[in-house]
């Protein structure tokens, strides 16, 4: 089946105030299939938020897309004209950001903020838009859509605000939603509610979803595939179950082990040392030749400092960037 979104060899770099170039993404390649949930797993600084906004060309002024293609529904978004992009953003691809209280205008009723999205993309009557807003809110608030529509953001909880943003995201029937840490500011029960809602909407509207997070636990039971981003490159990508149970890349393995309550927790006991990844992520402005994870890697070999590994397939759906598997 043709992918819905194909990202190829995407390079993005920021320029510091001192004029120094700092790469954020270097050669990111992946695709998203129709109706698929792709989890993007990465730590702070791995480039995951840059990826979210680069897809829609919403990068800040000091960032530059250096090369690559982003093919979406037959259009290369990196070369598309401003008007084409306007037609796609918010309508065909919706973006949901981390902090719902910052994404909503504090002084406009939330219903109106959804109506505004409809007005920007569809030439329907006011009444039709009002009706559709209520329908959309009913998707995410089955019980009291009308009351929510008339509320201001401060009258809603964090979870309710996030639901409003989801209603806004699905307003124009997009085929792809990019959600950057959509549950990071919510407590665990609300977090599960929101993830459940994504699952329902995916089934109902056959949406694709790119779910960006630093928490591998959230992806279990939700994502179809997981992409692990490390220092601006795709370290590993594969089906969720395989990735979480039998991670190949030493970074993925170390990351999964550092979460308490993982497989071996009960055997090791309370207050035992959690396995950590030594050191810190590399400074992308001063990279050396070898593998980016080499300095922190438990399995490093002599080869690893000499050159960067290449993408290796460990199965027909699972690839990894590591010399251990050929590279």
């Amino acid at each position, binding site marked *: *089946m043709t992918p819905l979104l194909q990202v190829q060899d995407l390079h993005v770099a920021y320029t510091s105030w001192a004029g120094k170039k700092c790469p954020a993404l270097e050669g990111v390649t992946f695709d998203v*299939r*129709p*109706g*698929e949930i792709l989890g993007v797993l990465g*730590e*702070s*600084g791995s480039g995951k938020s840059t990826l979210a906004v680069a897809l829609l060309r919403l990068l800040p002024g000091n960032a530059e897309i250096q090369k690559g293609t982003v093919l979406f529904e037959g259009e290369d978004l990196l070369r598309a004209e401003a008007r084409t992009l306007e037609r796609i953003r918010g309508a065909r691809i919706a973006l949901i950001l981390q902090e719902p209280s910052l994404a909503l205008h504090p002084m406009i009723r939330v219903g109106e903020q959804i109506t505004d999205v409809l007005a920007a993309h569809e030439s329907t009557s006011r009444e039709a838009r009002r009706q559709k807003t209520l329908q959309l809110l009913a998707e995410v608030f089955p019980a009291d859509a009308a009351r929510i529509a008339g509320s201001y953001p401060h009258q809603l*909880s*964090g979870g309710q605000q996030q639901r409003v943003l989801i209603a806004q995201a699905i307003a124009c029937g997009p085929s792809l939603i990019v959600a950057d840490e959509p549950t990071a500011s*919510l*407590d*665990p*029960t*609300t*977090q*599960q509610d929101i993830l459940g809602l994504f699952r329902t909407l995916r089934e109902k509207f056959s949406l694709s979803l790119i779910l960006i997070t*630093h*928490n*591998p*636990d*959230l992806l*279990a*039971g*939700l994502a*179809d595939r997981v992409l692990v981003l490390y220092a601006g490159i795709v370290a590993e990508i594969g*089906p*969720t*179950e395989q990735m*979480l149970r039998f991670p190949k890349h030493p970074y993925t393995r*170390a*990351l*999964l082990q*550092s*979460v*308490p*309550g*993982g*497989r071996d*927790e009960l055997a090791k006991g*309370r*207050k035992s*040392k*959690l*396995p*950590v*990844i030594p050191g*810190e992520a590399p400074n992308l402005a001063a990279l050396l030749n070898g593998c980016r994870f080499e300095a922190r890697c438990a399995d490093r070999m002599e080869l690893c400092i000499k050159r960067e590994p290449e993408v290796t397939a460990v199965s027909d759906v699972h690839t990894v960037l590591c010399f251990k598997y050929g590279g």
Partner: protein
Amino acid sequence: MERLLVVEKLAKRYEHGPLLGTKGIVTALQGVSFSIGRGATLALVGESGSGKSTLALCIACLERPTSGRIVFDGNEIATSDDKRLREVRPQIQLVFQDPARSLNPRFTAIDLVSEPLLVQGRLDKREREDRARGLFAKVGIRQEKALYRVAEFSGGQRQRLAIARALALEPKLLILDEALSALDCSVQAQIANLLVELQVSLGLTYLFITHDIAMAGHLADEIALMEQGRVVEFGLADKVLRAPDHVATRRLISTAPRLGAAAPALRVV
């Protein structure tokens, strides 16, 4: 085990208004009772709005409870006068969720860590800085970074600084209010390990406030669960996690995401 902190029937009500003509009372805490053993960790878990942070502020003597008792190290502190509280407060220190917001961005690392000593009028400048450098070593901040500012540190290092600052006055009780929640998983593990090390070497007592039940299970000796301003379950961590009595505890345990959770049915796309 000897108890360092005993909280009995604590209540806190806030009055608000009159705002637009209405006046009201919000009950944030109601009949809260629990205790923490000296040198132990109590995890206080609960959803947003359940009253965890209000309880932390009452224990840190930053809010006065409406009624009830707080006995810290043998002394009743809920009703103590301000003069007495000034002696108690340094012994109870807080570490907050987001070090980027809780640390002054214009201070250098060494000023941040030695400031509590300055405020308390303890030691001279030289001695304060020596103490700060000693704390850098304890929490794993490199000495060369003494003059760096908050923005120049990574998230995990910022939280190490916040911990060093909290330790400057040699407190007995450390309140960690969601101190790991804003960090990446692998950094959470590093800071969790640091907390365990410090607890062993300094004999610290922790009140660990979190909504991460897995981390609570990892770090805590005892767990207290809050719901709507009450402690609805309190007991040994093993007991609470394996055989929870209260429905809210069971719900929290069941909603915690798990790596081992059933994977979705494979979809053909």
